[in-house]
């Protein structure tokens, strides 16, 4: 579904992503793990079109490099950004409306229903400002908002960031459930243990390059990974 080849991201003189290559096959959860500043978020931003990279990003057989973010989103790649970025000045319903920006009016109602079924808390507060939600609720809203566009690829940037452990496992349960229904997921996480538990395949990023890749289960047992990312001595 997504094929990334020799991807480079530059911010001025800083070379954040240094020629990485990876694949996200249809129906799989693929995770990029690595320390803060390894280039994970930059990679997602490049795929989503928020930064202009060098290299190739093929999504559903089309080249995405050089396309603007809104066109990539319309193609069906949805990014839940790091830090959630819900529109705190809009109501929950309006946030969902934004998520379904390119949906026809008639398509919206069933999508709202689906979102509220998956996240009942959002239904109760549909007309409240998103700014009144807790961090965990905002993460649910950010997910629901991304799903409004019925994406074929769901990209999650640090969904566990700043959330209580209980909420984190809820979020990961939902991602797993979505995947079981066929959603392709590209997950970026510092919380490597959680990410590797639900992912099929994983890439380890260090200083902008991929240093290790493999089945998630294997990496979970890999000694280097355990030492560097799972906090074991």
């Amino acid at each position, binding site marked *: 579904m997504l094929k990334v080849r020799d991807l480079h991201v530059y911010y001025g003189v800083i070379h954040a992503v240094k020629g990485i290559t990876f694949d996200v096959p249809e129906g799989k959860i693929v995770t990029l793990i690595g320390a803060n500043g390894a280039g994970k978020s930059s990679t997602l931003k490049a795929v989503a079109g*928020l930064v202009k990279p060098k290299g190739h990003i093929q999504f559903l057989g089309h080249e995405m490099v050089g396309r*603007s973010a*809104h066109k990539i*989103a*319309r193609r069906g790649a949805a990014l839940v*950004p790091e830090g959630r970025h819900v529109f705190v*000045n809009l109501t929950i319903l309006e946030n969902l409306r*934004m998520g379904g920006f*390119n949906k026809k009016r008639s398509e919206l109602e069933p999508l709202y229903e689906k979102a509220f079924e998956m996240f009942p808390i959002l239904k109760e507060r549909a007309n409240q400002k998103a700014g009144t939600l807790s961090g965990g609720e905002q993460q649910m809203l950010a997910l629901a908002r991304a799903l409004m566009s019925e994406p074929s690829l769901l990209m999650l940037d640090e969904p566990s960031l700043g959330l209580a452990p209980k909420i984190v496992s809820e979020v990961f349960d939902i991602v797993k459930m979505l995947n079981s229904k066929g959603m392709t997921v590209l997950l970026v996480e510092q919380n490597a243990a959680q990410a590797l538990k639900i992912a099929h395949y994983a890439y380890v990023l260090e200083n902008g390059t991929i240093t290790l890749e493999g089945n998630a289960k294997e990496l979970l047992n890999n000694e280097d990974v355990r030492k560097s990312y799972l906090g074991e001595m």
Partner: protein
Amino acid sequence: MNLTIVLQQLFNGLALGSLYGLIAIGYTMVYGVIRLINFAHGDIMMVGTYVAILSGSALFLPWWAAFIFTILATALVGVLIDKVAYKPLRNASRISSLITAIGVSFFLENLFLVIFGGVPKAFPVPAVFSGVLHEGGVILPVISIFVPLVALVFLAILMYILRNTKYGIAMRALSLDMETTRLMGANVDAIISFVFAIGSALAAAGGIFWALKYPSINPLMGIMPGLKAFAAAVLGGIGSVPGAALGGFIIGIIEVLAVAIFPPLAGYKDAFAFLLLIFVLLFKPTGIMGEDLERGRF
């Protein structure tokens, strides 16, 4: 001062204030989405009045068609100004855009001076708008009744757009977070163009009514109303649409009342708006309806 005079002055202030309000909405919306004080906004109002004259005298449109044409054409001018002058600077520092806006302002003023000369032109006032009603000693020019009503109708339409249409909601989303709005699949450039179109259309409407009220126009006429509308937008809380309208009404009424109560100050009437601006900036920089600067808008 008796009640009649107070009513009369309130009424005059309301009419003037709604003109400021119409213009202030453009300032506030553009600031909301791209954090730019569009100092050329008052000049866009001036452009509107010239388009109105030309569409009557050169295109021979009846007055109502001329008004509609003017509003649409001026909206297009606003969009073009954004595309040519501001869009290339979208990622530049705010001060660059601000200086560019001042440049666009000077450019429009001088372009129109070159084309039309500095001699004021008479603005033809259709008979419908030139009547005067007398009601219990209060003199009500028809235009002064019409202006606040039209301003309120425009405000209601705009609020409806902002609350209930996807482009309106996207404008509010954009005012908070441009990147995430892009991620939603919304074409941010198109939305910004739409904001310039709305702001400029309202400035054109303001310009037409200004010219109907004070039927003499010149290329520099937009400066003072533009600056006062800016003060109104800040007073109301820059970024807030209802705030801009409210700020406009307040400044209009204060300006008129101050002169009515202290006639010797008539020569300083232009100063009141700016005095108020200074006080707002000193004591409540977020204005009446403004929120925390980096929170959402409208």
